[in-house]
Protein backbone atom coordinates (compact mmCIF):
# COMPACT_ATOMS: atom_id res chain seq x y z
CA UNK A 1 0.00 0.00 0.00
CA UNK A 2 1.28 3.46 -0.91
CA UNK A 3 0.87 6.46 1.34
CA UNK A 4 -1.30 9.10 -0.30
CA UNK A 5 0.46 11.14 -2.95
CA UNK A 6 3.90 9.69 -2.33
CA UNK A 7 6.52 10.22 -5.00
CA UNK A 8 6.49 7.56 -7.70
CA UNK A 9 9.92 7.43 -9.36
CA UNK A 10 9.87 7.82 -13.11
CA UNK A 11 11.43 9.47 -16.13
CA UNK A 12 8.29 10.71 -17.86
CA UNK A 13 7.65 14.15 -19.26
CA UNK A 14 5.67 14.96 -16.12
CA UNK A 15 8.61 13.97 -13.92
CA UNK A 16 11.03 16.07 -15.91
CA UNK A 17 9.01 19.29 -15.85
CA UNK A 18 10.41 22.14 -13.78
CA UNK A 19 8.87 21.93 -10.27
CA UNK A 20 8.15 25.67 -10.39
CA UNK A 21 5.98 25.17 -13.47
CA UNK A 22 4.24 22.21 -11.89
CA UNK A 23 3.42 24.14 -8.72
CA UNK A 24 2.12 27.12 -10.67
CA UNK A 25 0.09 24.86 -12.97
CA UNK A 26 -1.47 23.13 -10.00
CA UNK A 27 -2.50 26.43 -8.45
CA UNK A 28 -3.80 27.81 -11.74
CA UNK A 29 -5.63 24.63 -12.70
CA UNK A 30 -7.29 24.50 -9.28
CA UNK A 31 -8.48 28.05 -9.78
CA UNK A 32 -9.79 27.36 -13.29
CA UNK A 33 -11.48 24.15 -12.19
CA UNK A 34 -13.27 25.95 -9.35
CA UNK A 35 -14.32 28.84 -11.58
CA UNK A 36 -15.36 26.97 -14.73
CA UNK A 37 -18.68 25.23 -15.37
CA UNK A 38 -19.48 21.66 -16.38
CA UNK A 39 -17.90 21.84 -19.82
CA UNK A 40 -14.72 23.29 -18.38
CA UNK A 41 -14.68 20.53 -15.74
CA UNK A 42 -15.07 17.87 -18.44
CA UNK A 43 -12.32 19.51 -20.48
CA UNK A 44 -9.97 19.45 -17.49
CA UNK A 45 -10.90 15.82 -16.78
CA UNK A 46 -9.65 14.93 -20.24
CA UNK A 47 -6.57 17.14 -19.78
CA UNK A 48 -5.65 15.68 -16.38
CA UNK A 49 -6.49 12.18 -17.58
CA UNK A 50 -4.01 12.47 -20.43
CA UNK A 51 -1.45 14.05 -18.10
CA UNK A 52 -1.76 10.95 -15.91
CA UNK A 53 -1.28 8.67 -18.88
CA UNK A 54 1.81 10.68 -19.81
CA UNK A 55 3.21 10.52 -16.29
CA UNK A 56 3.17 6.71 -16.21
CA UNK A 57 1.86 6.79 -12.65
CA UNK A 58 -0.07 3.61 -11.98
CA UNK A 59 -3.83 3.64 -11.64
CA UNK A 60 -3.63 2.09 -8.17
CA UNK A 61 -1.75 5.14 -6.87
CA UNK A 62 -4.44 7.37 -8.27
CA UNK A 63 -7.07 5.27 -6.60
CA UNK A 64 -5.11 5.34 -3.32
CA UNK A 65 -5.32 9.09 -3.17
CA UNK A 66 -9.00 9.25 -4.11
CA UNK A 67 -10.21 6.44 -1.85
CA UNK A 68 -9.95 8.22 1.52
CA UNK A 69 -11.98 11.10 0.08
CA UNK A 70 -14.76 8.89 -1.24
CA UNK A 71 -17.18 9.36 1.68
CA UNK A 72 -16.69 13.08 1.40
CA UNK A 73 -17.45 13.01 -2.35
CA UNK A 74 -20.67 11.03 -1.85
CA UNK A 75 -21.78 13.30 0.98
CA UNK A 76 -21.04 16.36 -1.13
CA UNK A 77 -23.09 15.00 -4.02
CA UNK A 78 -26.07 13.98 -1.87
CA UNK A 79 -26.19 17.27 0.04
CA UNK A 80 -26.25 19.21 -3.21
CA UNK A 81 -28.77 16.87 -4.79
CA UNK A 82 -31.28 17.12 -1.97
CA UNK A 83 -30.86 20.66 -0.71
CA UNK A 84 -30.67 22.68 -3.93
CA UNK A 85 -34.02 24.36 -4.57
CA UNK A 86 -35.59 23.57 -7.95
CA UNK A 87 -37.74 21.05 -9.80
CA UNK A 88 -38.01 17.60 -8.15
CA UNK A 89 -36.86 14.85 -10.50
CA UNK A 90 -40.15 12.92 -10.10
CA UNK A 91 -43.77 14.22 -10.28
CA UNK A 92 -45.17 15.65 -7.04
CA UNK A 93 -47.06 12.44 -6.20
CA UNK A 94 -43.79 10.95 -4.94
CA UNK A 95 -42.52 11.55 -1.33
CA UNK A 96 -41.76 15.18 -0.51
CA UNK A 97 -38.07 14.75 0.13
CA UNK A 98 -36.71 14.44 -3.36
CA UNK A 99 -33.52 15.39 -5.18
CA UNK A 100 -33.99 18.23 -7.63
CA UNK A 101 -32.64 18.16 -11.16
CA UNK A 102 -30.73 21.39 -10.47
CA UNK A 103 -29.34 19.67 -7.38
CA UNK A 104 -28.18 16.64 -9.34
CA UNK A 105 -26.40 18.88 -11.83
CA UNK A 106 -24.78 21.02 -9.15
CA UNK A 107 -23.86 17.95 -7.10
CA UNK A 108 -22.20 16.28 -10.06
CA UNK A 109 -20.31 19.47 -10.95
CA UNK A 110 -19.08 20.15 -7.40
CA UNK A 111 -18.01 16.55 -6.86
CA UNK A 112 -16.21 16.48 -10.18
CA UNK A 113 -14.43 19.71 -9.24
CA UNK A 114 -13.17 18.22 -5.99
CA UNK A 115 -12.09 15.00 -7.70
CA UNK A 116 -10.13 17.14 -10.16
CA UNK A 117 -8.51 19.12 -7.33
CA UNK A 118 -7.35 15.92 -5.63
CA UNK A 119 -6.07 14.58 -8.97
CA UNK A 120 -4.16 17.79 -9.58
CA UNK A 121 -2.43 17.57 -6.20
CA UNK A 122 -1.71 13.85 -6.62
CA UNK A 123 -0.21 14.43 -10.03
CA UNK A 124 2.08 17.08 -8.55
CA UNK A 125 3.31 15.10 -5.54
CA UNK A 126 3.58 11.77 -7.37
CA UNK A 127 5.75 13.16 -10.15
CA UNK A 128 7.99 15.48 -8.08
CA UNK A 129 10.60 14.63 -5.44
CA UNK A 130 9.75 16.31 -2.12
CA UNK A 131 13.09 18.13 -2.17
CA UNK A 132 12.39 19.44 -5.67
CA UNK A 133 8.96 20.61 -4.55
CA UNK A 134 10.54 22.49 -1.66
CA UNK A 135 13.19 23.94 -3.94
CA UNK A 136 10.60 25.00 -6.50
CA UNK A 137 8.50 26.61 -3.80
CA UNK A 138 11.53 28.45 -2.51
CA UNK A 139 12.34 29.82 -5.96
CA UNK A 140 8.75 30.94 -6.45
CA UNK A 141 8.68 32.71 -3.09
CA UNK A 142 12.11 34.30 -3.56
CA UNK A 143 10.82 37.52 -5.19
CA UNK A 144 8.64 37.98 -2.09
CA UNK A 145 11.73 38.25 0.11
CA UNK A 146 11.65 41.98 -0.58
CA UNK A 147 8.39 42.30 1.29
CA UNK A 148 9.73 40.20 4.14
CA UNK A 149 8.66 36.65 3.19
CA UNK A 150 11.48 34.41 4.53
CA UNK A 151 11.58 32.09 1.52
CA UNK A 152 14.80 30.22 2.45
CA UNK A 153 13.61 29.68 5.99
CA UNK A 154 10.21 28.40 4.84
CA UNK A 155 11.90 25.97 2.45
CA UNK A 156 14.30 24.79 5.16
CA UNK A 157 11.44 24.29 7.62
CA UNK A 158 9.51 22.15 5.16
CA UNK A 159 12.54 20.06 4.18
CA UNK A 160 13.51 19.53 7.84
CA UNK A 161 9.94 18.42 8.57
CA UNK A 162 10.16 15.95 5.68
CA UNK A 163 13.56 14.75 6.87
CA UNK A 164 12.36 14.10 10.43
CA UNK A 165 9.04 12.35 9.71
CA UNK A 166 10.66 8.87 9.55
CA UNK A 167 12.83 9.63 12.58
CA UNK A 168 9.79 10.58 14.64
CA UNK A 169 7.88 7.52 13.49
CA UNK A 170 10.71 5.33 14.77
CA UNK A 171 10.86 7.32 17.99
CA UNK A 172 7.11 7.00 18.51
CA UNK A 173 7.32 3.24 18.02
CA UNK A 174 10.15 3.08 20.55
CA UNK A 175 8.21 5.06 23.17
CA UNK A 176 5.17 2.88 22.57
CA UNK A 177 7.21 -0.28 23.03
CA UNK A 178 8.82 1.12 26.19
CA UNK A 179 5.38 1.77 27.65
CA UNK A 180 4.06 -1.61 26.55
CA UNK A 181 7.05 -3.21 28.29
CA UNK A 182 5.82 -1.54 31.48
CA UNK A 183 2.37 -2.98 31.06
CA UNK A 184 0.43 -0.32 29.15
CA UNK A 185 -2.20 -1.89 26.92
CA UNK A 186 -2.94 0.21 23.84
CA UNK A 187 -5.60 -2.06 22.41
CA UNK A 188 -8.29 -2.08 25.08
CA UNK A 189 -10.27 0.31 27.27
CA UNK A 190 -12.78 3.03 26.51
CA UNK A 191 -12.12 5.64 23.84
CA UNK A 192 -11.35 8.17 26.57
CA UNK A 193 -8.77 5.90 28.17
CA UNK A 194 -7.13 5.17 24.83
CA UNK A 195 -6.99 8.88 24.12
CA UNK A 196 -5.26 9.41 27.44
CA UNK A 197 -2.71 6.72 26.56
CA UNK A 198 -2.03 8.45 23.24
CA UNK A 199 -1.35 11.71 25.10
CA UNK A 200 1.16 9.78 27.19
CA UNK A 201 2.93 8.90 23.94
CA UNK A 202 2.88 12.42 22.54
CA UNK A 203 4.50 14.13 25.53
CA UNK A 204 7.76 12.14 25.56
CA UNK A 205 7.84 12.45 21.78
CA UNK A 206 7.58 16.24 22.02
CA UNK A 207 10.20 16.44 24.75
CA UNK A 208 12.55 14.35 22.63
CA UNK A 209 11.82 16.57 19.65
CA UNK A 210 12.77 19.72 21.58
CA UNK A 211 16.04 18.21 22.76
CA UNK A 212 16.76 17.04 19.24
CA UNK A 213 15.92 20.47 17.82
CA UNK A 214 18.45 22.01 20.18
CA UNK A 215 21.23 19.68 19.05
CA UNK A 216 20.25 20.02 15.42
CA UNK A 217 20.46 23.81 15.70
CA UNK A 218 24.02 23.45 17.03
CA UNK A 219 24.97 21.12 14.18
CA UNK A 220 23.42 23.46 11.61
CA UNK A 221 25.23 26.48 13.02
CA UNK A 222 28.48 24.51 12.98
CA UNK A 223 27.96 23.95 9.28
CA UNK A 224 27.71 27.67 8.71
CA UNK A 225 23.95 28.09 8.70
CA UNK A 226 22.76 31.65 9.10
CA UNK A 227 19.67 33.55 8.14
CA UNK A 228 19.56 34.97 4.67
CA UNK A 229 20.65 33.83 1.28
CA UNK A 230 22.03 30.42 0.48
CA UNK A 231 22.58 28.34 -2.64
CA UNK A 232 21.43 24.84 -3.58
CA UNK A 233 22.91 21.73 -5.09
CA UNK A 234 20.23 21.40 -7.71
CA UNK A 235 19.67 23.92 -10.41
CA UNK A 236 16.23 24.26 -11.91
CA UNK A 237 16.15 24.15 -15.68
CA UNK A 238 13.44 25.69 -17.78
CA UNK A 239 13.22 23.34 -20.77
CA UNK A 240 11.23 23.31 -24.01
CA UNK A 241 8.50 21.16 -22.51
CA UNK A 242 8.22 23.66 -19.65
CA UNK A 243 7.75 26.37 -22.23
CA UNK A 244 5.07 24.32 -24.00
CA UNK A 245 3.18 23.72 -20.75
CA UNK A 246 3.46 27.39 -19.85
CA UNK A 247 2.04 28.39 -23.23
CA UNK A 248 -0.87 25.99 -22.76
CA UNK A 249 -1.60 27.43 -19.33
CA UNK A 250 -1.39 30.99 -20.62
CA UNK A 251 -3.81 30.23 -23.45
CA UNK A 252 -6.26 28.58 -21.07
CA UNK A 253 -6.10 31.42 -18.57
CA UNK A 254 -6.42 33.99 -21.30
CA UNK A 255 -9.39 32.11 -22.66
CA UNK A 256 -10.98 32.11 -19.26
CA UNK A 257 -10.32 35.75 -18.45
CA UNK A 258 -11.50 37.08 -21.79
CA UNK A 259 -14.32 34.57 -22.19
CA UNK A 260 -13.25 33.51 -25.64
CA UNK A 261 -15.81 32.00 -27.91
CA UNK A 262 -14.30 28.59 -27.39
CA UNK A 263 -14.76 28.73 -23.61
CA UNK A 264 -18.30 30.02 -24.04
CA UNK A 265 -18.89 26.82 -25.92
CA UNK A 266 -17.42 24.88 -22.98
CA UNK A 267 -19.30 26.91 -20.40
CA UNK A 268 -22.90 27.48 -21.49
CA UNK A 269 -24.13 28.36 -17.98
Amino acid at each position, binding site marked *: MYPIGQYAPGQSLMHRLDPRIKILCTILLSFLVLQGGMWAALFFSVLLGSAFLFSGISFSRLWQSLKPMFVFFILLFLLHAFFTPGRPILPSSAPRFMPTSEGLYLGALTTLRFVLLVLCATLLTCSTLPMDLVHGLERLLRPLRRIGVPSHEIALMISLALRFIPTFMIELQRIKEAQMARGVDFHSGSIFKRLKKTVDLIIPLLLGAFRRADELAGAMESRGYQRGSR*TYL*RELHFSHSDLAVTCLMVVMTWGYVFRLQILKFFNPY
Partner: protein
Amino acid sequence: MIKIENLTYQYDSNQKPILADLNLEIRAGEYVALVGPNGCGKTTFIRHLNGLLLPVKGDIWIDDWNTKDSALLPKIRQKVGMVFQNPDHQIVGTTVEEDVAFGPGNLNLSPPEIRQRVDRALEWVGLRHHLQTTSHALSGGEKQLLALAGVLAIRPIYIAFDEPTSHLDPLSRKRILRVLQKLNSQGIAIIHVTHNMDEIIHAQRILVMDQGKIILDDNPAAVFTRIELLQKIGLDVPKISALLWHLRQKGIALRADILELDEACLELYRLIKPENTDPVHLV
Protein backbone atom coordinates in the same frame (compact mmCIF):
# COMPACT_ATOMS: atom_id res chain seq x y z
CA MET B 1 46.73 27.36 15.51
CA ILE B 2 43.92 27.35 18.06
CA LYS B 3 44.89 29.28 21.15
CA ILE B 4 42.84 29.07 24.31
CA GLU B 5 43.58 31.73 26.91
CA ASN B 6 42.19 31.64 30.46
CA LEU B 7 38.97 30.03 29.24
CA THR B 8 36.35 30.00 31.98
CA TYR B 9 32.76 28.98 31.44
CA GLN B 10 29.81 28.66 33.78
CA TYR B 11 26.10 28.48 33.03
CA ASP B 12 25.21 30.36 36.19
CA SER B 13 27.41 32.76 38.13
CA ASN B 14 26.44 31.09 41.42
CA GLN B 15 27.56 27.67 40.29
CA LYS B 16 30.97 26.13 40.12
CA PRO B 17 32.54 26.84 36.72
CA ILE B 18 32.34 24.00 34.19
CA LEU B 19 35.62 25.08 32.63
CA ALA B 20 38.10 26.75 34.95
CA ASP B 21 40.87 28.91 33.56
CA LEU B 22 42.05 26.69 30.70
CA ASN B 23 45.18 27.57 28.75
CA LEU B 24 45.96 25.49 25.71
CA GLU B 25 47.27 25.51 22.19
CA ILE B 26 46.27 23.17 19.40
CA ARG B 27 48.56 23.32 16.39
CA ALA B 28 47.47 22.86 12.79
CA GLY B 29 47.70 19.25 11.66
CA GLU B 30 47.83 17.85 15.17
CA TYR B 31 45.82 14.82 16.40
CA VAL B 32 44.69 15.72 19.88
CA ALA B 33 42.56 13.42 21.99
CA LEU B 34 40.50 14.79 24.85
CA VAL B 35 39.45 12.30 27.50
CA GLY B 36 37.74 12.63 30.83
CA PRO B 37 34.88 11.26 32.90
CA ASN B 38 31.25 12.20 32.22
CA GLY B 39 30.40 15.77 33.08
CA CYS B 40 34.01 16.94 33.22
CA GLY B 41 33.39 19.64 30.61
CA LYS B 42 34.67 17.98 27.42
CA THR B 43 31.62 18.76 25.33
CA THR B 44 31.38 22.28 26.76
CA PHE B 45 35.01 22.76 25.86
CA ILE B 46 34.81 21.73 22.22
CA ARG B 47 31.61 23.71 21.72
CA HIS B 48 33.78 26.75 22.35
CA LEU B 49 36.08 25.96 19.46
CA ASN B 50 33.68 27.16 16.76
CA GLY B 51 31.79 29.71 18.79
CA LEU B 52 28.71 27.64 19.60
CA LEU B 53 29.48 28.70 23.15
CA LEU B 54 31.36 31.86 24.06
CA PRO B 55 33.74 32.11 27.02
CA VAL B 56 32.47 33.83 30.16
CA LYS B 57 36.08 34.81 30.84
CA GLY B 58 39.12 34.48 28.61
CA ASP B 59 39.48 34.23 24.83
CA ILE B 60 39.71 31.67 22.07
CA TRP B 61 41.75 32.52 19.01
CA ILE B 62 41.35 30.54 15.81
CA ASP B 63 44.35 31.59 13.69
CA ASP B 64 44.14 35.06 15.26
CA TRP B 65 40.37 35.31 14.98
CA ASN B 66 38.56 35.73 18.27
CA THR B 67 35.37 33.68 18.56
CA LYS B 68 33.77 36.59 20.43
CA ASP B 69 33.76 38.62 17.20
CA SER B 70 30.39 37.63 15.75
CA ALA B 71 31.32 39.02 12.32
CA LEU B 72 34.09 36.41 12.11
CA LEU B 73 31.92 33.45 13.18
CA PRO B 74 31.05 32.31 9.63
CA LYS B 75 34.78 32.26 8.76
CA ILE B 76 35.65 30.51 12.01
CA ARG B 77 33.03 27.83 11.38
CA GLN B 78 34.50 27.32 7.94
CA LYS B 79 37.86 26.58 9.58
CA VAL B 80 36.64 24.52 12.53
CA GLY B 81 34.21 21.75 11.65
CA MET B 82 32.36 19.75 14.25
CA VAL B 83 30.96 16.22 14.25
CA PHE B 84 28.59 15.39 17.10
CA GLN B 85 27.81 12.27 19.05
CA ASN B 86 24.46 11.30 17.59
CA PRO B 87 24.37 11.24 13.78
CA ASP B 88 20.57 11.37 13.82
CA HIS B 89 20.69 14.79 15.45
CA GLN B 90 22.96 16.40 12.86
CA ILE B 91 21.72 15.20 9.50
CA VAL B 92 19.67 17.93 7.85
CA GLY B 93 18.98 16.61 4.36
CA THR B 94 16.37 14.14 3.19
CA THR B 95 18.85 12.50 0.85
CA VAL B 96 22.57 11.90 1.29
CA GLU B 97 23.65 14.42 -1.35
CA GLU B 98 21.23 17.08 -0.10
CA ASP B 99 22.70 16.73 3.37
CA VAL B 100 26.29 17.12 2.25
CA ALA B 101 25.23 20.10 0.12
CA PHE B 102 23.88 21.93 3.18
CA GLY B 103 27.24 23.34 4.31
CA PRO B 104 28.48 24.46 0.86
CA GLY B 105 25.01 25.95 0.25
CA ASN B 106 25.43 28.04 3.39
CA LEU B 107 28.69 29.33 1.92
CA ASN B 108 26.73 30.53 -1.13
CA LEU B 109 28.82 28.48 -3.54
CA SER B 110 27.65 27.96 -7.10
CA PRO B 111 25.73 24.74 -7.89
CA PRO B 112 28.60 23.18 -9.94
CA GLU B 113 31.03 23.92 -7.09
CA ILE B 114 28.59 22.41 -4.57
CA ARG B 115 28.23 19.33 -6.77
CA GLN B 116 32.01 18.91 -6.93
CA ARG B 117 32.42 19.26 -3.16
CA VAL B 118 29.56 16.86 -2.46
CA ASP B 119 31.05 14.23 -4.76
CA ARG B 120 34.56 14.65 -3.33
CA ALA B 121 33.41 14.50 0.30
CA LEU B 122 31.27 11.41 -0.27
CA GLU B 123 34.07 9.77 -2.24
CA TRP B 124 36.38 10.47 0.68
CA VAL B 125 34.25 8.79 3.33
CA GLY B 126 33.27 5.98 0.93
CA LEU B 127 29.59 6.80 0.51
CA ARG B 128 29.73 7.82 -3.13
CA HIS B 129 27.39 5.01 -4.15
CA HIS B 130 24.72 6.37 -1.77
CA LEU B 131 24.23 9.79 -3.43
CA GLN B 132 20.46 9.50 -3.79
CA THR B 133 19.77 7.31 -0.77
CA THR B 134 17.40 8.75 1.82
CA SER B 135 19.51 9.65 4.83
CA HIS B 136 17.45 7.78 7.42
CA ALA B 137 17.90 4.53 5.49
CA LEU B 138 21.65 4.43 6.22
CA SER B 139 23.18 2.36 9.02
CA GLY B 140 24.48 4.04 12.17
CA GLY B 141 28.08 4.00 10.99
CA GLU B 142 27.16 5.28 7.53
CA LYS B 143 25.12 8.07 9.12
CA GLN B 144 28.16 9.17 11.11
CA LEU B 145 30.27 9.05 7.94
CA LEU B 146 27.60 11.15 6.24
CA ALA B 147 27.76 13.66 9.08
CA LEU B 148 31.54 13.77 8.57
CA ALA B 149 31.14 14.21 4.80
CA GLY B 150 28.82 17.15 5.52
CA VAL B 151 31.62 18.75 7.53
CA LEU B 152 34.36 17.88 5.01
CA ALA B 153 32.41 19.61 2.23
CA ILE B 154 33.02 22.89 4.07
CA ARG B 155 36.78 22.12 3.84
CA PRO B 156 37.77 22.90 7.45
CA ILE B 157 41.35 22.66 8.69
CA TYR B 158 40.39 21.64 12.21
CA ILE B 159 37.66 19.11 12.97
CA ALA B 160 36.36 18.46 16.45
CA PHE B 161 34.69 15.10 17.06
CA ASP B 162 32.44 14.78 20.11
CA GLU B 163 32.41 11.07 20.97
CA PRO B 164 31.84 10.13 17.34
CA THR B 165 31.84 6.39 17.96
CA SER B 166 29.69 6.09 21.07
CA HIS B 167 26.56 5.09 19.13
CA LEU B 168 28.33 2.65 16.83
CA ASP B 169 29.05 -1.07 16.66
CA PRO B 170 32.71 -2.22 16.71
CA LEU B 171 33.01 -2.50 12.94
CA SER B 172 31.64 0.98 12.24
CA ARG B 173 33.81 2.27 15.05
CA LYS B 174 36.92 0.94 13.34
CA ARG B 175 35.79 2.43 10.05
CA ILE B 176 35.36 5.88 11.61
CA LEU B 177 38.72 5.67 13.38
CA ARG B 178 40.47 4.77 10.13
CA VAL B 179 38.86 7.76 8.45
CA LEU B 180 40.01 9.99 11.32
CA GLN B 181 43.60 8.87 10.91
CA LYS B 182 43.42 9.28 7.15
CA LEU B 183 42.08 12.81 7.63
CA ASN B 184 44.92 13.62 9.97
CA SER B 185 47.47 12.30 7.48
CA GLN B 186 46.05 14.82 4.98
CA GLY B 187 47.01 17.62 7.34
CA ILE B 188 43.68 18.23 9.03
CA ALA B 189 43.91 18.77 12.77
CA ILE B 190 41.70 16.40 14.74
CA ILE B 191 40.31 17.08 18.19
CA HIS B 192 38.86 13.77 19.28
CA VAL B 193 36.73 13.62 22.41
CA THR B 194 36.14 10.13 23.76
CA HIS B 195 35.78 7.84 26.77
CA ASN B 196 37.51 4.99 25.09
CA MET B 197 41.29 4.99 25.54
CA ASP B 198 41.81 2.22 22.98
CA GLU B 199 40.66 4.63 20.28
CA ILE B 200 43.36 7.19 20.88
CA ILE B 201 46.65 5.31 20.99
CA HIS B 202 47.39 6.87 17.60
CA ALA B 203 46.89 10.41 18.85
CA GLN B 204 49.93 12.66 19.01
CA ARG B 205 48.76 14.17 22.23
CA ILE B 206 46.26 13.30 24.92
CA LEU B 207 44.55 15.85 27.11
CA VAL B 208 43.00 14.45 30.28
CA MET B 209 40.28 16.61 31.71
CA ASP B 210 38.71 16.46 35.13
CA GLN B 211 36.35 18.94 36.76
CA GLY B 212 36.91 21.60 34.15
CA LYS B 213 40.69 21.45 34.24
CA ILE B 214 43.33 19.82 32.05
CA ILE B 215 45.20 17.55 34.49
CA LEU B 216 47.46 15.79 31.97
CA ASP B 217 48.76 16.94 28.59
CA ASP B 218 51.26 14.54 27.06
CA ASN B 219 51.84 11.87 24.44
CA PRO B 220 49.87 8.59 24.77
CA ALA B 221 52.77 6.51 26.11
CA ALA B 222 53.40 9.00 28.89
CA VAL B 223 49.72 9.43 29.73
CA PHE B 224 49.11 5.69 29.94
CA THR B 225 51.82 5.28 32.58
CA ARG B 226 49.74 7.43 34.92
CA ILE B 227 47.37 4.55 35.63
CA GLU B 228 46.68 5.47 39.25
CA LEU B 229 45.75 9.04 38.44
CA LEU B 230 43.51 7.96 35.55
CA GLN B 231 41.78 5.32 37.64
CA LYS B 232 41.18 7.84 40.42
CA ILE B 233 39.09 9.98 38.06
CA GLY B 234 37.27 6.95 36.66
CA LEU B 235 39.16 6.28 33.43
CA ASP B 236 40.74 3.08 32.18
CA VAL B 237 43.96 2.74 30.25
CA PRO B 238 44.27 0.37 27.28
CA LYS B 239 44.75 -3.24 28.41
CA ILE B 240 48.19 -3.53 26.80
CA SER B 241 49.45 -0.44 28.61
CA ALA B 242 47.99 -1.71 31.89
CA LEU B 243 49.62 -5.12 31.51
CA LEU B 244 53.06 -3.68 30.73
CA TRP B 245 52.73 -1.16 33.55
CA HIS B 246 51.95 -3.91 36.06
CA LEU B 247 54.91 -5.97 34.82
CA ARG B 248 57.18 -2.95 35.17
CA GLN B 249 55.87 -2.42 38.71
CA LYS B 250 57.09 -5.97 39.45
CA GLY B 251 60.53 -4.86 38.39
CA ILE B 252 60.58 -6.36 34.91
CA ALA B 253 62.55 -4.18 32.52
CA LEU B 254 60.18 -3.23 29.70
CA ARG B 255 60.07 -0.20 27.45
CA ALA B 256 57.49 2.35 28.52
CA ASP B 257 56.49 3.57 25.06
CA ILE B 258 54.70 0.46 23.80
CA LEU B 259 51.06 0.93 22.81
CA GLU B 260 50.26 -1.68 20.17
CA LEU B 261 49.48 -5.34 20.72
CA ASP B 262 52.05 -6.77 18.26
CA GLU B 263 54.80 -4.55 19.58
CA ALA B 264 54.05 -5.66 23.14
CA CYS B 265 54.08 -9.32 22.08
CA LEU B 266 57.45 -8.88 20.44
CA GLU B 267 58.90 -7.18 23.49
CA LEU B 268 57.63 -9.94 25.79
CA TYR B 269 58.93 -12.61 23.42
CA ARG B 270 62.37 -11.02 23.48
CA LEU B 271 62.21 -10.98 27.25
CA ILE B 272 61.47 -14.68 27.39
CA LYS B 273 64.00 -15.64 24.70
CA PRO B 274 66.74 -12.99 24.78
CA GLU B 275 68.95 -14.96 22.37
CA ASN B 276 66.35 -14.66 19.63
CA THR B 277 66.78 -11.28 18.01
CA ASP B 278 65.09 -12.00 14.71
CA PRO B 279 61.98 -9.99 14.20
CA VAL B 280 59.10 -12.43 14.45
CA HIS B 281 55.49 -11.80 13.70
CA LEU B 282 53.43 -13.20 16.48
CA VAL B 283 50.16 -11.46 15.86
